[in-house]
């Protein structure tokens, strides 16, 4: 047996020579590092072409690794005393109008907290397209143990006239409207502006997006796009120096309203930077 193996090694047809193996490994390693480098450079190129140029390029190669919003708030202080149960946010949405902005916020919440996400189909709807079933990403590895999570995000596709959120049914009435739910989820990130002027501006943009862009006629839509365009000419984001809920909701409404190519230049630029941040990745598959 021993002899046979030795002979085989000498021939070079049987067992692989250790030296050769090491060489191959080194080559793989070099190739891998080259690819990494290429990804970083690509990311860098992207940021240069968009207004958000001060972004750290190294985080771009593997999606946004750093939490986008680093507020100081804690879930206990935001949502009250922990009763030893999963805090489950239930969202009832109509599959005819997928709540794009909430999907973006879900992604942001997942970066900050241990979120147990699940998608259900209510018996009031018969069939839901497959992309909607997987819109919260793949199932978490630990999803069999609900207690290990800080926050539950339960999306139910249901035949509802208006999007609805139920959280603490004992003390809160159901919250209606995608924008209002978005405001609630954004506060959980602890990143809502503290300055009252900025906070009001943010709310203003959100209302404009929801009532005039998403539900308004073509004239109203054009007017909103114009004001977005002029605001985005002055600063990279709609409110303050960083991405805020105003950008998330407005971008989702613009994306849903039609092809990005028909938008004014500054808006297009801004959409591109939103896309580069990676938070909107979950939205694009649903736009087809």
């Amino acid at each position, binding site marked *: 047996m021993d002899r046979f193996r030795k002979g085989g090694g000498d021939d070079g047809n049987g067992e692989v020579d250790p030296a050769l193996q090491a060489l191959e490994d080194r080559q793989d390693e070099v190739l891998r590092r080259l690819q990494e480098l290429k990804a970083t450079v690509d990311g860098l190129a992207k940021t240069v072409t968009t207004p958000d140029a001060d972004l750290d390029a190294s985080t771009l190669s593997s999606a946004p690794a750093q939490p986008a919003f680093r507020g100081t708030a804690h879930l206990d202080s935001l949502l009250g005393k922990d*009763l*030893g*149960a*999963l805090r*489950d946010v*239930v969202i*009832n949405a109509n599959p005819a109008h997928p709540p794009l902005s909430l999907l973006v916020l879900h992604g942001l919440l997942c970066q900050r907290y241990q979120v147990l996400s*699940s998608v*259900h*189909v*209510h*018996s*009031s709807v018969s069939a839901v397209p497959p992309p909607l079933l997987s819109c919260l990403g793949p199932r978490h590895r630990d999803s*069999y*143990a*609900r*207690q290990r999570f800080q926050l539950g995000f*339960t999306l*139910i596709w*249901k035949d509802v006239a208006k999007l609805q959120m*139920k959280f*603490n*049914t*004992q003390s809160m009435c159901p919250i209606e409207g995608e924008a209002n739910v978005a405001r609630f989820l954004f506060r959980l990130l602890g990143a809502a502006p503290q300055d009252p002027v900025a906070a009001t501006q943010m709310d203003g943009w959100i209302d404009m997006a929801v009532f005039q862009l998403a539900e308004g006629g073509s004239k109203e839509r054009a007017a909103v796009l114009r004001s977005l365009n002029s605001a985005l000419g002055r600063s990279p984001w709609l409110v303050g120096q960083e991405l805020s809920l105003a950008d998330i909701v407005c971008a989702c409404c613009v994306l849903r309203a039609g092809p990005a190519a028909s938008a004014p230049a500054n808006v297009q630029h801004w959409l591109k930077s939103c896309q580069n941040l990676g938070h909107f990745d979950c939205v694009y598959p649903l736009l087809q």
Partner: protein
Amino acid sequence: MTKENVQGAAEEEQQAQSKKALKKQQKEAEKAAKKAEKQAKLAAEQQEADEDDFAKDRYGICPMVQSQQKLDRALVRVQDLTPEKAEQQIWVRARIHTSRAKGKQCFLVLRHQQFTVQALLAVGDRASKQMVKFAANLTKESIIDVEAVVKKVEQKIESCSQQDVELHVERIFVISQSEARLPLQLEDAVRPEGEGDEVRDGGEGRATVNQDTRLDNRVIDLRTTTSQAIFRLQSGVCQLFRDTLINKGFVEIQTPKIISAASEGGANVFTVSYFKTSAYLAQSPQLYKQMCICADFDKVFCVGPVFRAEDSNTHRHLTEFVGLDIEMAFNYHYHEVIDSITDTMVQIFKGLRDRFQTEIQTVNKQYPSEPFKFLEPTLRLEYKEAVAMLKAAGVEMGDEEDLSTPNEKLLGRLVKEKYDTDFYVLDKYPLAVRPFYTMPDPSNPKYSNSYDMFMRGEEILSGAQRVHDAQLLTERAMHHGIDLEKIKAYIDSFRYGAPPHAGGGIGLERVTMLYLGLHNVRQTSMFPRDPKRLTP
């Protein structure tokens, strides 16, 4: 003088009396004569009529069907009487649901199973006066064969299931005659709950039939549209259960119902004499399901009777019911089994929603309830969460305390409020409240890998991962103070290599009851057995 007077008065009285009597007699005689005359006239008329009854061979009572002849006659089912059949001449076999004669016309409502249609007989060139009279005098619930022409109607017939057509009867024959007096009226038995009372308050007393009368006369009660729909739907539950599991690669098994030892505690088990010794009626096929798993059947299910000798007279307990039992070997986590069972349930709910809409609506007419709501995939909550939800709602209970029935119902309401589902799974029960063969939770020994499933806030399934290790099983049995000798055969079956497995059992009657939102399990048991009822 006084004497004479008295006598005279008496005589007078007598005279008056006799006069009165005479008059009376005369009158009576006259009456009798008139009556006789009338009768004679009637008889003569009858005879006359009989003689010139041109439709004599168009109606009558058939000789008993003893299979003397094989007629080549197609009988159309009542449910198929639709406007497409208009103007066609057809034969129908049905029961007389109601009959109402009105001068020269007679309206019949014919019923077959849960479907009804209006039939009309009018004196004319097709039917004679005698024929209409014959039809009007038929007893309710008699079975008849009718030849008729299907006619469209201008105004919908609200009282029948076939609202767009009626039958114009040309021939009518009785196949089986019912006795005139029925122990209960079908109209009373299908009257929606509460409606009878309201009307009674208004002064127009309308009877309702109570549960015991219904069950005493189950054969008649089962004819009501509601009962027909309930049991057709129940058959659907069984079929969907089988179809779904067989598609998933399950094997149907049959297990003995006469067993030598009680499987789940000894208190609530029926003892039967078995030759020189005694035996028990199976409380569940639990042990046999698990033995089949140890015998490499991997995925098994079993549909059959289950016996519980609990002396409880509640709306949801029976002493014999049909159990739908599942047991399945899994790879690494018992949630594989939960997913399989919940998916089976969802397939059943979907199948009922899509295929049994008529039946659901029929039952809803008498017992209105909200449509059954569910999520796909099924919602799974953990016991701790449920306790937290109950505590938030103001219930005081310990973390490892079992759920009481009122708390189960309250929890059902809370879950429905938040998730809008009537079906959910509660996972990770405290170990202390489950049977000895339940697998403990590896991360917290106070909890277990066990689960219950709920429909409209009532438990329909109780299941768990079972201990498949003989040593741990012995430990758990000892902890529960069980005599090891009695369950030796059971423990021994795990000694020669047993795969990890889990399962659960559902009560067919309960599932039907809760799906339809009914209030008593006796309504969904065809011939219910409870501590007080052994017949019919």
